[in-house]
Structures are given as structure tokens and as C-alpha cells.
């Protein structure tokens, strides 16, 4: 990833947003400002900023922390990020069939792995304790609807 690629991503996003502006249905109500004006202006402004950012990036004037001393990524950056995101995907896939604690534990283990903790029993136990504590505080003490803690309680 480079600033130029970020600019291309922004331009692509603006393209999708512009297409979405064209599919906003016109209101049948009589009014001074319809539903299209504000989104249209915002997309136009963002497109302009994205192009300016792109030009600036092309000239090498935009920053990337990975180029800064002591900020660059150590080897295995992609694996660590995928591990963290994998934890999130596990939570999304399993929270409805398995309740909160097991997916929360897997999510925590993914995150811990991203910070170089090994995938072992200790990690599972600590993450299980974290997920159970949060479930207890949020769902039991504060009444937030997190669903059941475990699948056999569903």
C-alpha cells in the first residue's frame, strides 16, 4: 500500500458514491432542496480532494508511516493483521449459533496472536476469562443484550 494506491482507492470510492447519487429516487414532495443535492455536493467535494491527494501523492508529498524510522513494520505484518481480522470473522460467523463466550474467546485469541502470543491453552483460558467477564458485566450487570453466554443456553 502506498499513498498513490490510497488515492486510487479514494477515487474508486467516489466513483461508487457518484453512481449511488444517480440512483437516489427523486422525491415527489414539493421542496426547495431534494434528497440529491447534499450527497451530490459532498461526493463532488470528496472527488476533488481525492484527486488533489492523488496529485500530491504522485509528487511524493504524502506521508506513509512505514517509511518513517522506528515506525516501519517488522516481518510478518500481513500474517499478524490477518490473524486479528480472522478473530473478527470467527466472532461474526459463530456468535449466533454458539452464543457470546466461545466466539469472543476465538476473537480474543486471534487478536492476541496478532500481538505474538502463541495459540495455546494459556491463551485460550485468558481470552475465555476476558470474554466471560465482559459477557457477565455487559449482559448480566448492565442488561445489554449480548445473547446467551454458551450454546447449550440458547
Amino acid at each position, binding site marked *: 500500500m502506498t*499513498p498513490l494506491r490510497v488515492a486510487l482507492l479514494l477515487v474508486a470510492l467516489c466513483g461508487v458514491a457518484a453512481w449511488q447519487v444517480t440512483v437516489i429516487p427523486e422525491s415527489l414532495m414539493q421542496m426547495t432542496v431534494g434528497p440529491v443535492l447534499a*450527497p451530490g455536493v459532498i461526493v463532488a467535494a470528496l472527488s476533488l480532494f481525492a484527486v488533489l*491527494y492523488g496529485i500530491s501523492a504522485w509528487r511524493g508529498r504524502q506521508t506513509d*508511516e512505514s517509511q518513517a524510522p522506528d515506525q516501519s513494520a517488522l516481518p510478518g505484518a500481513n500474517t499478524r493483521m490477518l490473524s486479528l481480522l480472522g478473530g473478527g470473522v470467527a466472532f461474526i460467523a459463530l456468535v449466533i449459533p454458539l452464543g457470546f463466550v466461545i466466539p469472543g474467546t476465538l*476473537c480474543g485469541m486471534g487478536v492476541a496472536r496478532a500481538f*505474538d502470543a502463541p495459540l495455546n491453552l494459556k491463551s485460550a483460558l485468558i481470552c475465555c476469562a476476558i*470474554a466471560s467477564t465482559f459477557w457477565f458485566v455487559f449482559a448480566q450487570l448492565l442488561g445489554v443484550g449480548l445473547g446467551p453466554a454458551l450454546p447449550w443456553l440458547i
Partner: protein
Amino acid sequence: MEAFDALMGGFAIALQPTTLMWGFVGCFVGTLVGVLPGIGPALTIALLLPLTYHVPATSMFVMFAGIYYGAAYGGSTTSILLNTPGESAAVVTALEGNKMARRGRAGQALATAAIGSFVAGTIGTLALTFVAPWVVEAALAFGPAEYFSLMVLSVVAVSAVLGNSMLRGLVALGLGLLLGMVGVDLQTGQPRFTFGRPELLDGIEVTVAAVGLFAVGEALYLAWQGRESKGGEVMKLTGSLWMSKQDWARSWKAWFRGAFFGFPIGAMPAGGAELPTLLSYYTEKKLSKHPEEFGHGAIEGVAGPEAANNAAAAGVLMPLLTLGIPTSATAAIMLSAFEGYGIQTGPQLFSQQGSLVWTLIASLYIGNVILLVLNLPLVSLWVKLLKIPPPWLYAGIIVISTAGVYGAGNSVFNVGLLFVFGLLGYIMRRFDFPAAPLIVGLILAPLGEQSMRQALTISQGEWSTFFTRPLSGSLMAVAALLLIVPPLYKMLKRS
């Protein structure tokens, strides 16, 4: 005098045991999140938004105020002992504070930071108490055109003045405004940017965006770097927490000067505590009788900026409570909490929810005292928190973030969106895009559109209404100047 009476009424409610308990919880949690790197007040308040359905508004806002002030207090501990400022406003504290700790004066650095925070927080709250009613009175003359112009000024200031690059600030603002447009247009009922997904009809929840950007984004960035697990050096708590006579003599003027920098700048539409802390640092350096100590652990260099930081925190509440304009990410999330309770913000907040506002202000005074008592005696506990291994710290942060977002609506879609915002947060962090304009834009986009429509309906479609009404025109002119002057100045400087 009216303000004083109202404040006393606020104290009567704030001192009730239940409210006091919420205030204490807020201060404790706030200090905790201020101490812990990678978790700040905006994220914490966003995570607690789902509780707004279960807790009365007054208690909730008293807790939020405690978190907000507590985080400003707690940030100094991390800066001094770990040399890792949790937020940009604490960078200056780390400059001298960590050097003091290395010279065996960590206790005195923490003490001057805590007492300075108390002094400045109290001065800031006093200013808020007596200036806010004036601002409300002036704001009652605002029509929709003035509100729209004020919002334009506010978002331009937050994007263009703060951060390292105006362009990147404006890109972040544009993204925020675009995201704020997602959902059904409340006036016409037409869906916008929903891609046919029913989950997006209600718009993007602020909690999801804020938690994704701040928590998941930060964790992804640190995981990408892979340096966090190598750990920073936590300084030992050396030196007495009691300040010597000389420390007092060198600190007290710096506290007051810091407070007088912090509050007015914090209360301006651009908000922010970075500028006052820097101003305070350089002023102290200039006025100090020991300029040679700067860079090696000068106590004034901790006292002044910490005071400025806390006074600015009080200042940021001014536009939020009086005008309904958030000038920081935390203020934006607090505004969203007001919306969650169905409370209309703006000048009418003082008349319609007077009891709530004055209880909140009274709780700021009480919170300052709680924080002073909480901070120094519990400093060894805060130091222990800094030693939590990163894998378990970030596992906890992400699991609580996921729980907070999932618990808000039992929506798996929102959890997915949380991680998408996390990726966006990672990109923004890596390429130095500020997050605050995105959050402020997300919240102000629908409000701004509503004000614009009202103004144009009143003016029968005349766009000139934003420029011909004196107050609105002035605000627009200032916004235009903020956009034009800095690049022009840079160009002139280059040539």
C-alpha cells in the same frame, strides 16, 4: 447570579449518592482509559452508548463527563512513566515529564500534573459556568442559516486547522460527511447510499464508526507494526509524591497560565488541546528562570501543558453544550448520546434540560476533586496497568469493542462494519489522516443538511441567505479564510 443559583441546583442533584456513584465510576474508568495506551475517552464513551437505553440521562452524562475529565488526567501518567502519550495533547507532557522520571523525579512530575489538572480543570469549569449562559443568550438569535454556517465553520476548522495536513483533514471530513448521508433521508423518505441493504436504512451508527476507527484501527496498526509486543520501558515510580517548596513555586504560575491558554482555545470552533499545550510549553520555556533545564526535565514544562490540556477539555464542552456543535471526536460522540436520549442540543438545551446541564456542570467540579483524590494515591495501581502484556490488553480492547457494538443492536452486520471501519482506521493511521474530522462530519452531516433545508425554505430558495445575513456571512467568511489563508501563507513562504 442566575447561573450561580442554577449551579447550586445542579450540585443538589450531583451530590445525591446515585449520581455521585456514576460520577465516581466515570472518573475511575476515565483515568483507567487515559492511562492505558490505545484506548481513549471517545472510544470508551462510544462503547458505553448502548447503556443509554438502561440508565437515566443525568447519570449517564455525569459518568461521561467523569470519563472525559478522567482520561485527560490519566494520560499524563502514561506520558511521564512510559514516554508514550496516549493522545496528541499529551505529547508535550512526555517531553519533560519522562525526563523528570528518568532523573528520579517521577513522583513530583505526576504530582504537578495532577494538581495542575485540578487547578486548570476547576478554572475551566468556572469559565464554562459563567460564560456559557452568555453564549446561549447570543445563540438564541441564531436562525437555521447561522447554524448551517456555524457547522461549516466548525467542520472546516476541525479539518483544516488541526492535524498535519489540511488536504488529508478535508479528505477525512469528506468521508465523514459521505458516511453521514447513508440511510433514509428523513425529510423525503428516500434511501441514500444503502446499496439495497435494509441494515443501512437507519444510517451508520456512530458507535460502530468510532469504535472501529479508534479501537480496531489502532490495534490493526500496532499489529501491522509488530513492535508493541517488544514493549516500552515503564519507569519506576521514583521520588516523593509531595512537591517541595521550590516545586510549588515553579509550578503554580505555570498552572494558571496553562489554564488561560487552554480554555479559550478549547472553546473555539476548532477546539483541540494540541495548540494550547504547545503554546503553554513554549511560554514556560521563555519565562522560566531555569531555561537550561528544558529538555532535561523542567517541572514547568509538565505543569503548564497539563493544565492547558485539562482547561481545553472544559473549553470543548462550551460549543457542545451551548450550540450543539462538537469540536472533537469525544464531543461528537457525546452529542450522539444526547440524540440517543431524544434530547435536542443547542441553546435550547439550557432552557429545556436545565437541570441536566447544570448537574453535568456541577459534576465537573466534583469530578475534579474525585480525580485529584483518585489519581495520586492510586498511582501504583495505574503503573501496574501499564505492565499488562499487549496481547491480553488488545484482546480485551477488541473483545469489549465487539461486545459493545454487538450489544447495541444484536447485529452481526454491524460487527462486520466494525472491522471494515477498523481497516479504514488502519489506513488512516498509517497514512496520517486525522480521525476526528470523520467522526464530526458523520454526526454533523444530517444536522447540517437539515439546517440548510430550513434556511432555504425560509429564504424561498435564496442561497444568498447564508452570505447576506451578517452573522451567517461572517461565519462563512471565517471558514473561507481558514481554508484559503494557510495554503496561501505556505505558497508565499516558499516563493
